[in-house]
C-alpha cells in the first residue's frame, strides 16, 4: 500500500500543521464574536450572560486596583504550598512503604480510610479546627492529596520490572543504593504523572474552599461577583482560573522534562 510518509511530502504536511493552528485561532475569534454580537443585539440580558467586552472592562477595572495578581497569587500560593507539603511527605513515605511490607501493613488501614475521602469533605472540619485561615486552605489540600499520593507512590515502586532490581543486586548494589539508584528513579515517571493529577485536584479543592469561605483568591472573586450581581466578575474569575491552571500545567511539563530526561515525548 502506498503511504504518504513525511519524507515524500514534507511541504504538504508542514503547511497542514500551520493551517490547523490558524483554524484554532479563527475558531476562538469566531466564538467570541458570536457571543459578543448576541449580547449586543439584546438577545440575552447582560446580567444573565455579559459580553466578552464587559469581562475585559471588568478585568481592566480590577487590574488598575492591583487586584488581579492579588487574587491569582492568593489562590496559587494555597495550591502550591498545600501540594508541596503533601508531596514532600507523601512521596518519600510511599517509597519507604513500598520497600517494607511490615510498614505497609502498619499504615494500610489508615491510608485506606483516608483515600476515598474527597478533599472537599475536609472543608467543614478544617473550618471548625482552623477557622478561615491560610493554614486551613493548606490543610484541606494536604488531607485531600496525602493518602492518594502515598498509595500511588507505593504502586509506582511496585511497577518496576523485578529483572531490573535483580540486575542491580547482581551488580553489587546494597539496599540503600538500590533505593536511591533504582527504585526512586525507576518509579519517578509514574510518581510525576500522579503528582500532575494531584495538582489538578489541589486547584479544584482550593477554589471550592474559597467559594465556601475566604477573603481573597479566585474563588472569592467569583463569590464576591455573585453577591453583588456582577456577572462579568464571575466570568472573569472563571477565565482567570482557566488561564492560571493552563500556565501552571505548561510550567509543570517543562519541569517534568528536566527531571525525567530519559522519557521521550
Amino acid at each position, binding site marked *: 500500500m502506498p503511504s504518504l510518509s513525511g519524507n515524500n511530502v514534507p511541504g504538504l504536511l508542514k503547511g497542514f500543521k500551520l493551517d490547523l493552528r490558524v483554524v484554532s485561532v479563527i475558531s476562538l475569534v469566531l466564538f467570541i464574536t458570536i457571543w459578543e454580537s448576541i449580547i449586543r443585539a439584546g438577545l440575552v440580558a447582560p446580567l444573565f450572560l455579559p459580553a466578552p467586552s464587559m469581562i475585559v472592562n471588568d478585568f481592566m477595572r480590577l487590574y488598575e486596583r492591583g487586584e488581579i495578581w492579588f487574587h491569582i497569587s492568593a489562590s496559587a500560593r494555597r495550591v502550591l504550598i498545600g501540594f508541596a507539603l503533601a508531596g514532600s511527605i507523601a512521596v518519600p513515605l510511599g517509597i519507604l512503604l513500598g520497600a517494607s511490607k511490615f510498614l505497609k501493613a502498619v499504615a494500610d488501614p489508615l491510608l485506606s480510610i483516608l483515600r476515598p475521602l474527597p478533599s472537599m469533605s475536609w472543608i467543614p472540619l478544617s473550618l471548625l479546627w482552623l477557622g478561615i485561615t491560610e493554614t486551613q486552605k493548606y490543610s484541606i489540600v494536604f488531607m485531600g492529596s496525602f493518602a492518594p499520593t502515598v498509595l500511588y507512590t507505593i504502586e509506582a515502586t511496585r511497577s518496576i*520490572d523485578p529483572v531490573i532490581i*535483580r*540486575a542491580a543486586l*547482581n551488580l553489587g*548494589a546494597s539496599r540503600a543504593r538500590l533505593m536511591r539508584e533504582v527504585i526512586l528513579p525507576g518509579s519517578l515517571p509514574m510518581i510525576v504523572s500522579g503528582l500532575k493529577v494531584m495538582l489538578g485536584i489541589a486547584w479544584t479543592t482550593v477554589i471550592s474552599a474559597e467559594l465556601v469561605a475566604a477573603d481573597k483568591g479566585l474563588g472569592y472573586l467569583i463569590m464576591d461577583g455573585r453577591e453583588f450581581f456582577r456577572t462579568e466578575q464571575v466570568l472573569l474569575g472563571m477565565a482567570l482560573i482557566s488561564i492560571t491552571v493552563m500556565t501552571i500545567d505548561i510550567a509543570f511539563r517543562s519541569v517534568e522534562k528536566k527531571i525525567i530526561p*530519559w522519557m521521550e515525548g
Partner: protein
Amino acid sequence: MANTVIQVNDLTKIFETKKEKVTALQDVNLTIKNREFVVLVGASGCGKTTLINTIAGFEKPTSGEVLLHGEPVTGIDPRCGMVFQQYALFDWKTVINNVDFGLKMKGMKLKERRELAQQYIDMVGLQGFENAYPSQLSGGMKQRVSLARTLANNPEIMLLDEPFAALDAMTRQVLQEELIRIYSESQKTILFITHSIDEALLLSTRVSVMTSRPGKIKQFLENDLPWPRDADVQLHPRYQELKSEVWSTVQEEVMKTAGLLGADKDKC
C-alpha cells in the same frame, strides 16, 4: 572437589501459578569446574533461564541445592555476573552510567570508573553513544550495553543468557571473538546459554543439552576443538562430528516438544 566452582545437585524447580504448577526443572545435576566454559543448549521453554536464575540466586530451588565453591547459594551473589536475556538496563541512566554501575557500587572513583567503562563501551562498539539513554538504542545495542556492564564489573563467574541473540551476524562474530579473548586471558568460569549449536561449539569447552520441559541435563559433550578459536574452527574436521552429535540430541528434544504440545491439546 576443590576445583569445582558451580555445583547443582538434584535441582528441581516448580513454579506455582494460580491455575497450574509448572515443573521447569527436574533433578538437574551440573558441575562446572574452575575455568570451564560450559554452553547450555535446549529448546525454547525448557528451563535454561530458570537454571541460570537459580544459580545466580534470583530463584530459590523447590528442592535440591546450588553450591558456589562448595557453599549453598542463599541470595543474589555478585560473584556471578549475569547478562540478562531481556537486557535489564537502567532506563534512567545513560549508556556510560549503566556500564559503570557495578564499579560505582564497589566505591570506585568517578574518573577511574569512567575510564574503565569507556574501554568496555569501545570494546562492544558503542563509542559515540556514551550519553544516549537505552530508549534511544536498538535491541542489539542494548544487548551490547548489558554485556559491557557485566564485563566491566569483572565477575569471577559469568552467566550469560542468550547474550548475542539480538545481534546481526557480523557484530555477533566480533563479540564472540572478544568473549573468547576475555575468557582466554582471564580466570573466569562461564555458563552460557544459546540456541545456536555453532555458537556452542565455537565458544565452549563443554556443551550440555537440556531436555524439553521439565528440563533435565541430557547430554554432556567435551568440546575438544583446538584453542585459540575463531570462526575458522568450523573448518576443522572434528567440528562436523561434534555438530551432528549435538544436533541429533537437540532434534530429538525438539520433536518431543512438538509431540508433547499435541498431547497437551488432546487433554484439554
